């Protein structure tokens, strides 16, 4: 046993060591959020690229068909006549994203859909609606790609009416209500992509550079009437339109402050997906705002603190107001 303990030996005291560790800890603590911010910025960029892709797909669709697809396609005898002349026969058809599949390199998926004879949830069509299309997703979303309406993303757990692939993009219906006579699917949207009717770019009197085409949306957790816990949100096959009436990251959205512990219809009604629709709006998991693409194909990041009137002006296609938000 050698006695090498020597008070004159150069070395570190415990205090010095602890101080060094503390300083390194602080430096790492300062660095980590910065790294996370850069990663989030990269995800946001990828998301905005996909918005641009989707807007180019819509522009190509408009060139080929001389009009845009309807934002969604739903008719019901429940609509009051004041909502405009809609078919009296029930038809639950396809949304804008389903119509532009051939323009986002999804020809095989598009050809597996029977657009003419079946509702989107019937037979082979349901398999298509449960197919995740990356182009319509934003990678910042913690639930990105999880199936909606049933079983928190467990695939194909329920009947053919459940499990739909999500979309983080919703057409901008306008600034007015999504509901007409209490029924979702107001065919008189004052934006570009709304229920039943098609618009053309020539209808956009406010200018393509001043009018929102598609905005970002997120999912919320809830409970399916018969299947238990589930995610609810927008799916690309249909229904993916929203109004600016709820703002950006509005009170009914996540992460806009939706209190998922409050379920006002527990016990009665129990139709959680309808509740999602009544409260939802545009939202994202990026900090402080959400991606939107204008009809001219330019992607903009809109703050969740934007004045409501400015947001509504951007949503209308022929409101006659002059927007200078992006000029």
């Amino acid at each position, binding site marked *: 046993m050698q006695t090498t303990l020597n008070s004159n030996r150069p070395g570190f005291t415990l205090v010095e060591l602890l101080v060094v560790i503390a300083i390194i800890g602080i430096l790492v603590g300062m660095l980590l959020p910065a790294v996370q911010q850069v990663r989030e910025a990269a995800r946001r960029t990828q998301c905005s690229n996909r918005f641009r892709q989707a807007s180019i797909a819509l522009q190509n669709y408009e060139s080929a068909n001389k009009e845009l697809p309807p934002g969604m396609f739903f008719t019901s005898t429940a609509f009051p006549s004041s909502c405009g002349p809609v078919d009296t026969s029930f038809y639950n058809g396809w949304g804008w994203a389903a119509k532009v599949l051939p323009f986002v390199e999804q020809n095989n998926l598009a050809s597996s859909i029977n657009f003419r004879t079946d509702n989107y949830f019937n037979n082979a069509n349901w398999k298509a609606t449960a197919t995740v299309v990356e182009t319509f997703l934003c990678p910042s979303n913690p639930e990105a790609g999880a199936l909606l309406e049933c079983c928190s993303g467990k695939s194909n757990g329920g009947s053919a009416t459940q499990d739909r692939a999500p979309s983080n993009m919703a057409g901008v219906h306008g600034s007015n209500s999504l509901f007409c006579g209490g029924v979702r699917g107001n065919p008189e949207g004052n934006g570009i992509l709304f229920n039943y009717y098609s618009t053309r770019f020539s209808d956009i009197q406010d200018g393509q550079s001043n009018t929102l085409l598609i905005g970002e949306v997120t999912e919320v957790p809830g409970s399916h009437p018969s299947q238990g816990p589930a995610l609810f949100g927008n799916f690309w096959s249909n229904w993916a339109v929203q109004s600016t009436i709820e703002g950006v990251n509005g009170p009914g959205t996540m992460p806009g402050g939706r209190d998922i512990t409050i379920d006002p219809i527990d016990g009665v*009604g129990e139709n959680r997906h309808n509740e999602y629709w009544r409260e939802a709006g545009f939202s994202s998991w990026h900090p402080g705002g959400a991606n939107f693409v204008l009809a001219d194909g330019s992607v903009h990041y809109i703050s969740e603190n934007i004045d409501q009137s400015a947001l509504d002006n951007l949503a209308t296609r022929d409101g006659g107001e002059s927007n200078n938000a992006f000029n």
Partner: protein
Amino acid sequence: MHSIRLSGLLVVCVSILLSGCGDTRPFQATIVHGSVSFQGTPIQNGEIRFYPKDGTKGPVSGGPIKDGRFEVKTKGGVPVGNHSVKIQAFQTTTAKQNEDLPPEVAADFSGDLQQFLPQKFNTNTELTAEVFSSEKRQQLDFDLQD
């Protein structure tokens, strides 16, 4: 002696870190809470929204109404100033309106909620409210009469 200097450095570092935390919203807001009833009956299930008007700056704010009460606290609450208020209340309907659906689909649509308040409280609202900055929490009660 060294450790005193070092701990001083620590305090400086921590205060620099904390200085980044602050409210950066471009508008002032107040937490608003209260009760909502229609014809004297508390609204069990609904939504309340505050839309800035008359030059008030800020986004839409609001929250759910449950058991006749609401509280708006996200994003700091309701922006200070004048607002038009929209209130919706929902009740369950039967599946009759969708009777032409296939049965497995009708199950999903059953129990649709219908909004039952008159349009003068929501779509064409006449309700207004003023939110002040002086109070920490402001109480606003809405006793709606048709």
